[in-house]
């Protein structure tokens, strides 16, 4: 499995992608610094930064770029056949792909947001940023790895999901919010940090379980898909 892991990791290390997402991470740090340096900023501002910039935009989009490509790119360009036609269990291929995506996404996403949290408010906000962004990353890696294998142009489908489901439908009421990674992880952030109570839309157990369950279901579907799909 380590061979596959190294292959996936290497294929994901695309300079443009790293620079682009590194810049977004840097922007998060700069915004954290601006919040921390501002006289009028309160606990809400730091939490809003982690929530609105991190959980709503930076984390899902960054994870989408990596996770949807990790199996999606070989599937589309036809190189998947060189992994598929080997005596390797399908779950091992998926596990290696997910491990590679997590290895890249976690430092690229969680570190800048933790730093932004530290600069913006420190204390509970740092822990909240680390916990919520890690949970969101794990969940989105599962969802977008499946999406990458399931559809062509997964980036566009993923963006539509982020904008329309997470950003629009899930904000319409408490029931869709329960099924939203964004609302769940925002609730985790709200409980851990000093954010105002209105951050908590989802109960504690559901806020942790729903994103993890979404990832688990998505990974199960990915293994099934990989085993049953036609390979070019």
């Amino acid at each position, binding site marked *: 499995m380590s*061979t*596959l892991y190294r*292959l996936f990791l*290497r*294929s994901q290390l695309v300079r443009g992608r790293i620079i682009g997402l590194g810049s977004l991470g840097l922007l998060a740090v700069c915004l954290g610094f601006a919040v921390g340096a501002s006289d009028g900023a309160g606990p809400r501002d730091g939490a809003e930064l982690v929530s609105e910039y991190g959980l709503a935009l930076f984390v899902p989009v960054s994870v989408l770029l990596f996770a949807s490509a990790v199996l999606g790119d070989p599937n589309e*360009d*036809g*190189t998947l*056949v*060189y*992994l*598929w*036609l*080997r*005596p*390797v*269990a*399908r779950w091992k291929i998926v596990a290696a792909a997910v491990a590679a995506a997590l290895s890249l996404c976690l430092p690229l996403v969680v570190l800048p947001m933790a730093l932004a949290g530290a600069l913006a408010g420190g204390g509970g906000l740092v822990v909240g940023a680390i916990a919520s962004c890690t949970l969101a990353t794990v969940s989105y890696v599962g969802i977008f790895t499946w999406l990458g294998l399931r559809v062509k142009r997964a980036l566009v489908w993923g963006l539509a999901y982020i904008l329309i489901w997470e950003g629009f439908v899930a904000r319409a009421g408490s029931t869709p919010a329960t099924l939203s990674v964004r609302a769940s992880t925002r609730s985790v952030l709200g409980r851990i940090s000093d954010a105002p109570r209105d951050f908590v839309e989802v109960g504690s157990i559901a806020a942790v379980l729903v994103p993890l369950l979404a990832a688990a279901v998505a990974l199960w579907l990915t293994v099934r898909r990989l*085993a049953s799909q*036609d*390979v*070019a």
Partner: protein
Amino acid sequence: MIQVAGVSRWFGDVVAVSDVSFDVGPGVTALLGPNGAGKSTLLRLLCGLTTPSQGTVRVLGANPRGDPSLYRRIGLVPQQEAVFERLTGLAFVALAAELHGLPSPETAAEGALRLVDLDPGDRRPLSTYSKGMRQRVKVAQALVHEPEVVVLDEPLEGLDPRQRLHLIDLFRTLGAEGRCVLVSSHVLDEVERFGSRVLVMAQGRLAAEGDFHDIRELMDDRPHRLRLRTDRPHALAGALVASGAATAVRLEVQDPQSDRTTGSGVLVDTVDVAAFRATVAGAAQQAGARLLELTPLDDDLESVFRYLVAPVPPEPR
């Protein structure tokens, strides 16, 4: 080693493979067919890359779909050019060796690369490789684990003539070792060099299988064409028609000067080559003609292929 029984594969309204049945044993077998005949789909079915809509495929006695352990014994050169662009040739083949669980992947990869005439020490990434080099590295990854069944989809495309000959020799060697080598191609003169066993596909159906000389013999509706060279073409043509051995004759050259030195060509159509061969000497003697040469014109693979994939001519009214 490969058994295909009543296999069809359709994609929506498009039937790619239609009710195909055949067995393939050890040795080299060529899969022939024009573009769009269903060759690649058939090869993908054999490797389990897609499932039959109907029928069964067995490779080494097992269903190639859903049993990854079988892939230890199968090697595939896929049609698409894409490879892991950022890897070197050695790393690409070593990756295959590692995934096949070989004890020393790098050594095996070096051996496979040498087999296809590539330098294992080449440090350039595959993105810089020419099409011919890519084809050979694809062959190397298919052979690195020494599979019993080797499936190659247009493996000679993009190769220069020297490399083609080298790979053709390699395939023949693999076949002689008792492996089942199935090669698809539409370049007929190359296929002819693999050996004489062919599977011919046309419009998704298996048009013929077996030795192509035998297939030609079975084509009763297509007269065989031969060329005779003789010093008295008119007389010989008349004698052949009179004997009933030829169904049609055509004179090629009418220049009397050349008739005396090199002889003239007579194109003869016959439905029974064996009977014709038995008759022609007597007919020549009877006509007082010297028979200088007798050459069959359409028992080569190209003619067989052309007859098989071309539409059947309408029955004369």
